[in-house]
């Protein structure tokens, strides 16, 4: 599951305990140099604990953390000075915006002129040069978060550790902030660890993903791969794989689940072996009539509920329950309601197969 990468940060045999219980247990995790690694997982999965361990602000019960192959805790202050962090809360100090951005440089003994230059540059890059003289307590949530990110970049860190820095700001502000951040990060390319629970954010910003569940590393890989090809049932559930069916392989590339036959182009399991068949809800296409291609399931609409830009519909096909997310416009065009019969089309490429070990 772990790919070979040019590891900037390495986590080896890490165990963090709280109250005698292991809250984080990672055998091996490599954070690739110059890329954005998104750490995803449900609440309480240990994402923030991992970040705190990398910031050296908690003491693991066991394990090694390496930066460029060297133990990070040999000289914690020196290690931290090669990194920067930003959190969900902006965590600014009671001073002006510019003084906040200059602070990490001041702690590193950078002279006043250079400090000012860098602070002004990063305030400009985050579009908040006009706030430079404002006191940190007089900022809106979005402004404060921009200052926090400008401060994180100002010390030109090798490693950027970010704990859900976009989740505390309102939606329109968030959009612009992520856009600016993506642009800056692609130019400066620090090794970035971004903790997030947001799928869109992970797909948009991540080059690499590490998925944690209940304190354990369950899957690593490209974010799209983690979301589309989960390694096990727990990962499938977390990544929003609404359709997970227990079945078995009946012939080459063909599986049976709930009395329904499904073709898949995914890697095969042994003939007759139990398998979990996973399909993302947005990959299920509903039509009035079948066109003979791919998997075509005759299904009855059971429930319909709007979910932002899509309509989520639960359907039944034989003994199989399935969920489909259909864009609102496509749903209107389809013109069906509860009790109507439709054809659910699923491309064999969208049927992901997991060996079911129970």
């Amino acid at each position: 599951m772990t790919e070979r990468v040019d590891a900037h940060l390495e986590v080896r045999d890490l165990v963090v305990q709280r109250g005698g219980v292991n809250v984080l247990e990672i055998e091996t995790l490599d954070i690739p140099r110059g890329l954005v690694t998104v750490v995803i997982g449900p609440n309480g999965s240990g994402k923030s604990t991992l970040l705190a361990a990398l910031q050296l602000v908690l003491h693991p019960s066991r394990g090694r953390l390496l930066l460029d192959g060297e133990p990070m805790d040999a000289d914690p202050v020196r290690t931290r000075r090669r990194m920067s962090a930003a959190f969900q809360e902006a965590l600014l100090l009671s001073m002006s915006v510019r003084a906040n951005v200059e602070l990490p440089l001041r702690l590193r003994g950078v002279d006043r002129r250079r400090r000012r230059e860098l602070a002004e540059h990063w305030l400009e890059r985050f579009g908040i040069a006009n706030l430079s003289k404002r006191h940190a307590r007089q900022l809106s949530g979005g402004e404060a978060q921009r200052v926090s990110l400008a401060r994180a970049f100002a010390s030109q860190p090798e490693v950027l550790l970010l704990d859900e820095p976009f989740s505390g700001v309102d939606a329109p502000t968030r959009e612009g902030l992520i856009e600016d951040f993506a642009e800056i990060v692609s130019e400066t390319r620090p090794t970035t660890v971004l903790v997030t629970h947001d799928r869109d954010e992970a797909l948009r910003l991540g080059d690499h993903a590490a998925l944690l569940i209940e304190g354990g590393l369950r899957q690593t890989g490209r974010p799209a791969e983690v979301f589309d090809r989960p390694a096990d049932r727990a990962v499938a559930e977390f990544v929003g794989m609404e359709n997970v069916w227990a079945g078995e392989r009946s012939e080459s590339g063909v599986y049976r689940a709930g009395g329904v036959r499904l073709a898949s182009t995914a890697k095969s399991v042994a003939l007759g072996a139990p398998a979990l068949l996973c399909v993302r809800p947005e990959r299920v296409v509903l039509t009035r009539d079948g066109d003979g291609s791919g998997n075509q399931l005759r299904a009855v609409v059971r429930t319909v509920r709007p979910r932002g830009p899509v309509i989520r519909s639960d359907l039944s096909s034989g003994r199989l329950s399935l969920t489909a997310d259909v864009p609102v416009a496509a749903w209107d065009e389809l013109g069906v309601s509860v009790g109507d019969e439709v054809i659910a089309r699923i491309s064999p490429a969208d049927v992901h197969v997991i060996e079911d070990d129970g």
Partner: protein
Amino acid sequence: MDLIWDGIREAARLWWSGDGEIIEITLRTLAISSAATALALLIGIPLGAVLALRRFWGRGLIVAAVNTGMGMPPVVIGLLVALILWRTGPLGDLNLIYTPTAMVVAQLLLSLPLVVGFSLASIQSVNPRLIGQMWAMGANRLQVLWLLVRETRLGLLAAVMGGFGAAISEVGASMQVGGNLAGETRVLTTATVLETGRGNFEVAIALSLVLVVLAFLVNLVLTAVQQRRPVT
């Protein structure tokens, strides 16, 4: 009432005429209490920070001792310091009893619990995540302490005022370890006690007024610092 008016008139006259003894006593008072407060801050703020930020065995006991110390009667402190510095006491060889240094020590012990207590309360009120951010920014131990002092400066100025107030206003301990020697260890409080005892109420009132005005001026400056608009 006449007695009080006479006292106020006498105070004005003493100050107007630039009475050498009054000025000398005032300056000595300021020097001893300032030194005691400065030492209390130097020791008390880091101690308050450690108590606020660290969890260790016996911490609760120390905090309870600090809280008790905040209300400790000055005569008890005076007795303790006198016993230690007495010629036959453990530090008798230093010949510090009845010196301004002994008074600084006594006032330091009186104001220290106040400074530790106020610092502890202010630093404990800082968002722990903000302290985490200070470390994450690459601050070392001293820099974290500096940032905490900066961040809690309003509360810490209360510690300065409390500490200075305790030092300058106490009389018992100064009497016990200073001896109220004219020209050497006489300060405003001990001189006031002496003049009251002699029935020289005008002088006692004059000295008290000087003490009150002095305390007020020092606190006025500190309050101005505390309440000024935040700057970069």
